[in-house]
């Protein structure tokens, strides 16, 4: 497979790093070249975070993805998805959670921030047929916890076909990276909305 560029973005604490590690591990099992870069450090405390992931048969030198080069953007939060949209290829795929996370500073500054405006913008800016908006709140409603949002979105991304990996490819690496007591919950989340 030629190089596939994937960006995951969201708010620190939403679990983007685990999702990125699962994809990387699955790609590695395919025998592909894999490189990725993560936001680690201060921004993890509720700031904007992103992961860059690159994999495929061709040699890859650097783990970073340039503007207009991502095949797939997995957005954990609508505003953050909009922020990273310039990194998407013109015909790239977006898989995005619709649930907004209100930044504490916006509240204090009296600004309103509305996830719906962001989603409307995505509908207008992403090429037709390449946007998959997901109701991530289903994790909380149906599984009782928002902490598996990452794996839920991963499932959606896999099924969009833009990741270049199958459900079985990704599910196979779960036991390597997820603690046994959370395994079933994550599998349920992965399959939610299939």
């Amino acid at each position, binding site marked *: 497979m030629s190089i596939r560029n994937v960006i995951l973005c969201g*708010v*620190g*604490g939403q679990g983007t790093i685990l999702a990125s*590690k699962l994809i*990387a591990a699955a790609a590695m099992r395919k025998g592909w*070249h*894999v*490189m*990725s*870069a*993560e*936001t*680690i*450090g*201060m*921004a*993890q*405390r*509720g*700031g*904007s975070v992103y992961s860059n992931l690159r994999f495929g048969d061709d*040699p*890859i*030198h*650097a*783990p*970073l*993805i*340039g*503007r*207009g*080069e991502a095949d797939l953007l997995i957005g954990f939060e609508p*505003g*953050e998805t*909009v*922020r990273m*949209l*310039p990194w*998407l*290829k*013109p015909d790239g795929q977006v898989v995005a959670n619709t649930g907004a996370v*209100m*930044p*504490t*500073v*916006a*509240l*204090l500054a009296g*600004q309103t*921030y509305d996830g719906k*405006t*962001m989603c409307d*913008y995505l509908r*207008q*800016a*992403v090429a037709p047929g390449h946007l998959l908006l997901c109701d991530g709140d289903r994790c*909380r409603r149906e599984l009782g*916890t*928002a*902490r598996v949002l990452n794996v839920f979105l991963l499932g959606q991304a896999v099924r969009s076909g833009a990741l270049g990996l199958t459900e079985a490819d990704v599910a196979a690496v779960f036991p390597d990276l997820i603690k046994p007591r959370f395994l079933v919950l994550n599998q349920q989340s992965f399959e939610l909305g299939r």
Partner: protein
Amino acid sequence: MGNAAIAKGAVAAGVRFAAGYPGTPSTETLENVAKFSPPSGERGVHVEWSVNETAALEAAAGASYAGARSLVTMKQMGLNVASDPLMCLAYIGVKGGMVVMVADDPGPISSQTEQDTRRFASHAKIPCFDPSSVQEAYDMVRAAFELSEARGTPVFLRPTTRVCHAYSVVEVLDDEELPPPVAPEGFVKDSQRWVIFPGLSYRNHEKLVRRNEELSAELSDSPFNAVVAARGARFGRLGLVAGGISWALALDELDRRTETPRLFKVGTPYPFPEKAALAFLEGLDIVLCLEELDSVLEEELLKVVGKHHLPVKIIGRLTRTTRVNGENTVELVKAYLRDFLADGEVSCGTVEPPVPPPLPMRPPVLCAGCPHRASFYAVKQAMKGKKSLFCGDIGCYTLGNARPLDMVDTCLCMGAGIALAQGVWRVEPDTTCFAFVGDSTFFASALTGIVNAVYSGADLTVVVLDNSTTAMTGHQPHPGTGRTIRGDVAPRVSIEGILRGIGLATVETVDPLDLPAAVATVRRVAAEPGVKAIVFRSPCAVLAKPGPALRVDPDRCIGCGRCAKELGCPALSLRERPDSGRKLAVIDETQCNGCGLCAGLCPVGAIGKGEQQA
């Protein structure tokens, strides 16, 4: 991860002693050494989080004197702390190989400065390896140990954030391929060798210069430094030099082209491989330098060009062809190459999406339930209306600077807040001065400042924010936690004991989440004369078991917004009631850690424990 590859490489190289102090982006290296190595046995490694970088470097030097291979890890700011022993050690040298891994942080992403450890290498005359990928980081750390032991000098390994925190498939040696373990020879007494004196330094200075000249020639043939011939004839008179992640970024960009200029990759910026540089420069008209932080490669090339009277133009940061600060991004490297090669070749047709709606800023904030929020709030309440100064320090609690807390007036470097407060107080004695310092920072670098404040007769309050961990860098233990990096029990050093030992008459410990008690303590202690201390003790919310989430009783909430606006807790927000449009405070139960701070603020008692309200 790059840091894990470095750890793996160090273990493969037979490291026996590894020490460091946490700092982004270096932290995971030491943690992975602990993971990849046994604590004892013939391949056993002693791994420790030292109290600070100086202690780490000195301890590792001792191990090296005794013939063991040692690794020291830190971030670039840490090297400033460790520079005293390091500068001297360069003259004394080591016996067992010693690699000093210093992670640089272009951007800067998580640091106070954009300083360049390659520059430090030439300043200290210590050889330096600069990896451009995770694989190279693994290979280089092993080569660095070999060079260090062969030449009896500490050696730098200087990855940047994009190598430290990058992941890739890495080929490593199998266990059977590892060299057999060597038992360290032990310390051999020799005062002519291990005791630094002016005469010794005079003699060794010349040896260092000569050795580095030899190394420059030797390293010119190293696989880490490579001259790559031009592809095609089009760019025959152009050259590109790069090191670190900039090299990898340039390769990705050049892979898209059929014709490329001549390339020079520099993996050992110091001593600069002059012979290889001469071969590279031969017949070129102009050379573009791609590097981050300082213009090290550019200046080295200028020296070579000047020394050998070569008619080659060198461009980069000094000519302002490239940016002088920040990271080299994919976009920047793309633009630099497009301009340099003037080939107008752009990889993808980037179509900028339509103008997006305004996006909110999303700076990092203290976690929901963070005890620091409570501590800052207590001091703020106690000092309301008084002229006061709040000196901050380095850690999660630097985030106390943001509104609504707004409790960090200064932040300079690790441990600086105390002496800073002392200085301000001298000039403005009518100000009530506070110096906030975290528990890990307290041990690392606050003690001298406190002794200084006591000795100089200052009047200030030291506030130790003790959350029983080094939180910002990912929760490492420290001398106050009673745990080692491997999770074993260690002697616990008492913060209060130290403070009393220094001579502070007033040292009070209080739980910041008990707001009334905390405020009363601050009022009482701050009124005492001289130097006094408050220890706010409550575990980091990420490590503590969360209590049940609190709930707002919508029937009682009057929508005043005090809880949300005064605390800035990310779990608290204000919504409009769908029926009346009046405001209602809402607690996000998935984020709330049940610290209870907001409940104490509510003027009508609308916030309470979930089960009571339900």
